[in-house]
């Protein structure tokens, strides 16, 4: 076709990439500045203004390792819960015929339009006042323990597999549990990584819920600890922006690196099923 056809593409994409990525570049540069430099030239790292002091400062203020560990535990709890119970539900919804299946699927679609924030007050009453789970990992994990989008991904995945595959195993006399273990689970492996990626960013990035139910600083995930530092402590620090940006880099890095490393498993075809379905 004609040449010069894609000039607008290149311009749009390049502009987009700059707008999307510059703040991340600036986050890293700012986190390494010994004294904050907001001038234009400050956007380029200057060797005489580089230091790791900001990382030391934020670590001393909020205990980076402890809050990272809290984030890891909460996220791991949600990912494990989603993978175990989500695969089971996804398989049942896609391949089994039983009473209540339609209702469950309808409920699953319906809850996508309920803003989680509406549920925050009753959940707070239930979890904190009712079960006394404030300042606990279980309390932070519970509302997110099965990610519905991941269940949806599993369901779509199992739908693509031919029913005959499972029927054949059943005709061979395999029990339903056996069919699940020897046929379904080995096949679902490619979807596991996609679902893990999707699930990971929820609890790792979540702020409101853990913020509400943790008062003890030793239990706070990194997002909450950093936010508290931003809204209260930062004004007293010598280079508040630097320390905030250092904390932001530590919070952002795991999610960003995971998605870059496994980008092949997070493509539109996985989500496409959601648009069509």
């Amino acid at each position, binding site marked *: 076709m004609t040449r010069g056809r894609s000039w607008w593409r290149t311009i749009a994409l390049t502009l987009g990439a700059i707008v999307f990525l510059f703040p991340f570049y600036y986050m890293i540069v700012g986190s390494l500045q010994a004294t904050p430099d907001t001038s234009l030239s400050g956007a380029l790292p200057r060797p005489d203004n580089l230091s790791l002091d900001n990382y030391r400062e934020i670590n001393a203020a909020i205990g980076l390792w402890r809050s990272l560990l809290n984030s890891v535990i909460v996220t791991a709890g949600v990912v494990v819960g989603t993978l175990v119970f989500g695969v089971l539900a996804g398989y049942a919804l896609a391949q089994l015929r*039983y009473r209540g299946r339609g209702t469950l699927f309808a409920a699953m679609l319906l809850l996508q339009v309920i803003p989680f924030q509406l549920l925050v007050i009753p959940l707070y009453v239930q979890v904190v006042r009712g079960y006394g789970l404030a300042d606990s990992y279980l309390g932070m994990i519970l509302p997110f323990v099965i990610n519905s989008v991941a269940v949806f991904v599993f369901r779509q995945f199992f739908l693509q597999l031919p029913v005959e595959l499972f029927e054949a195993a059943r005709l061979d006399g395999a029990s339903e549990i056996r069919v699940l273990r020897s046929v379904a689970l080995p096949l679902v492996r490619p979807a596991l990584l996609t679902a893990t990626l999707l699930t990971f960013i929820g609890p790792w990035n979540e702020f409101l819920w853990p913020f509400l139910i943790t008062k003890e600083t030793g239990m706070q995930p990194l997002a909450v600890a950093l936010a508290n530092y*931003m809204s209260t402590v930062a004004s007293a620090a010598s280079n508040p922006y630097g320390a905030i940006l250092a904390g932001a880099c530590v919070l952002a890095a795991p999610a960003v690196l995971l998605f870059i490393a496994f980008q092949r498993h997070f493509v539109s075809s996985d989500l496409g099923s959601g648009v069509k379905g």
Partner: protein
Amino acid sequence: MTASILGRHPVGLLLSAPYAVYIAAVFAYPLGMAVWISFHDYIFTAPGVSVPRPFVGTDNYTTALADPAVRQSFVNILIFLVINVPLTVVLSLLLATALNAAIPFRTFFRVGFYVPYVTASVAVVGVWLFLFSSDGLVNQVLGDLAPDPSWLINEKWAMPSIALFVTWKQLGFFILLYLAALQNVPSELYESAAVDGAGRWRSFRAVTIPGVRPATTLVTLLAIITGANLFTEPYLLTNGGGPSGRSASPVLLMYQRGIEQQHPDVAAAIGVLLVAGVLLLAGAQRLLERSRE
């Protein structure tokens, strides 16, 4: 094979039971309870303590709506949606269309676009505070054009700044949705448009836009729901919905009234009003779609 009263594969009930219990406990029950609380005089109590919680009709709704801060927060979220939703739809369709071709560095662009989406709001809020502060980089570049007071502490600019931030943050996800939808537009349609002598802009309008209409509906709906959930950004970016409540969101008010000031009943009423508003918008959008068909 015998079909029992439980269906052909009763084991399905067992396998989906944990998920069903989860939906019931974390969505259905709290949803019902939120509505119940909003019609009663409700206070927080220690576990096991029972206090009278009399039915008070629509008192909590009256209290919520009589509160100027609450009214302001609903105006704010409308301003937010008016900026955020159209911008999200236009920009994500544009960038998805640009990405939908064999171009160099395609993976780089695709990944680059969703990096903000996968990053914690708390983290990116940090760098936006730095960029948009009074003597931050953005104002340095703008020079005399910079608003005074600066973006996030300016009554006029605080909410639009948040709307821009959320657009930027969520766009990558919506680009992926549109990319998926673009795969379903038959290429023959583009070919016949080209045969008819349609230019690129004409074929974008005549083929692409109608072809991705279901995705547009979904993107609009999800953008409205995300917007209605706004909390972290006004809490951190504008220091609790400031200046003078001009960037407070209904969810922020729910937090302030419900948890900070211990009026969960009024907070629940704000939540129910918010969801009613979202449903109304979603319904209006459906009607609009239908009238177009």
